[in-house]
């Protein structure tokens, strides 16, 4: 994976302080939210840890980092946009939909069509970690996100799911 190229604003200190003036803050938040989605897509990150020292929130080069309040504010905005979901009430971990659930559903459908998998059965684990998906977009997909995509496809009548012993063993048959 090539290294991520951060935009100019990531190198400009005041962007790491949540701005008090609304018009300025709105613009700042918009830029950060775009960056979060792009960074997560590039690094295939599905869960952001608010307290973590990710290169996203910290710029050692200019000795600045977003504080917790700012990080929560940005992720809250992504939640409003339907691009993220808090995984706990304490807002410490956030699931990031850099592709929306329906977009992931389309990726699954494409995969099934490309590899002629109609009528086959696979588990969630195989669909995200198995040898068959190595090298495809599905590899490394977070099981929670994949499960939602599959449920969406089930509602559309494109797959049938059945419970396994564990969530990873949830089975799906492509119709």
């Amino acid at each position, binding site marked *: 994976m090539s290294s991520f190229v951060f935009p100019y604003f990531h190198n*400009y200190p005041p*962007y790491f*302080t949540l701005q008090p003036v609304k018009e300025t803050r709105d*613009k700042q938040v918009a830029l950060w939210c775009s960056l979060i989605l792009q960074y997560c897509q590039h690094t295939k990150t599905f869960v952001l840890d608010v307290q973590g020292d990710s290169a996203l929130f910290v710029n050692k080069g200019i000795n600045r980092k977003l504080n917790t309040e700012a990080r929560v504010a940005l992720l809250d905005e992504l939640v409003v946009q339907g691009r993220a979901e808090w995984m706990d009430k304490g807002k410490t971990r956030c699931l990031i939909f850099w592709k929306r659930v329906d977009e992931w559903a389309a990726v699954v459908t494409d995969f099934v069509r490309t590899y002629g998998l109609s009528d086959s059965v696979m588990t969630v684990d195989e669909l995200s970690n198995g040898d068959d998906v190595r090298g495809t977009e599905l590899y490394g997909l977070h099981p929670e996100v994949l499960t939602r995509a599959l449920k969406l496809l089930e509602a559309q009548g494109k797959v049938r799911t059945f419970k396994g012993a564990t969530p990873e063993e949830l089975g799906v048959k492509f119709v």
Partner: protein
Amino acid sequence: MRRGPGIAGLQHAVRTKEQYKVAGEEVKKNTLQAMHEQLAAFRSNLEEFARKYRADVRRDPVFRAQFHTMCANIGVDPLASNKSLWASALGFGDYYYELGVQVVEACLASRSLNGGMMELPGLLRAVNRRRGAAAEPVSEDDVVRAIKKLRVLGGGFDLVTIGGRGYVRSVPGELNLDKNRALEAAQARGYTSVAELAAAAGWTAGRADETLQALTREGLAWVDDGAPDGARLYWFPCLSSAGGSAAEEQAAAAAAAAAAAGGGGPEQSSPAPG
């Protein structure tokens, strides 16, 4: 001519004076006439020159600047009126109008990030980017002329000099002496603090604080609470290359998006500041 004695002599003198006066008027009239004719010839030569060199004037910023200087020296303003012979001979009306629109667009695109102030070289880069590689290049001189024409629009477009450097301002609102002083203090590193400004300007902390807060409210300054010693810093995107670049990046992205959307003509800039 001798002044004869008596009334006859006086009448003679008066008549002579009259004749001189009439003769003088004649001379004056002839001279003025000659002058008018000369000026007319000169003007027509100049317009012929403009037509002949129109392509060079449009293509070469240096030649263009020299042309303007020559016109200024003889008291001619080729930009004076859209409808003038100049405008049609040179096509200047369109040229500077179009440039003015591009200046406005570049300013608006980055306004929410730099508060409506841009360093002239930065504006020049943004405008040239908008024009694209195939277009005739513009110089800082051209941009300055366009901005001066834009002044009549109101809306705050104007040139501002701070610490000897030129900026374009695109929002109304006074850049009063205190704010100017603050910008000057911040110019060296692109940021300042209440303490630093107070020391540099010889003000009370209160006055420095008020000025910096006013500049922040107007969007010209961004606050930074992440400095190692904890003191709040005020950064001015229009003054520093990183901040200016962030704003320029935005402006470039907006221009690219507009071009991709099949733009000809001015597009809606995002987002409209309140």
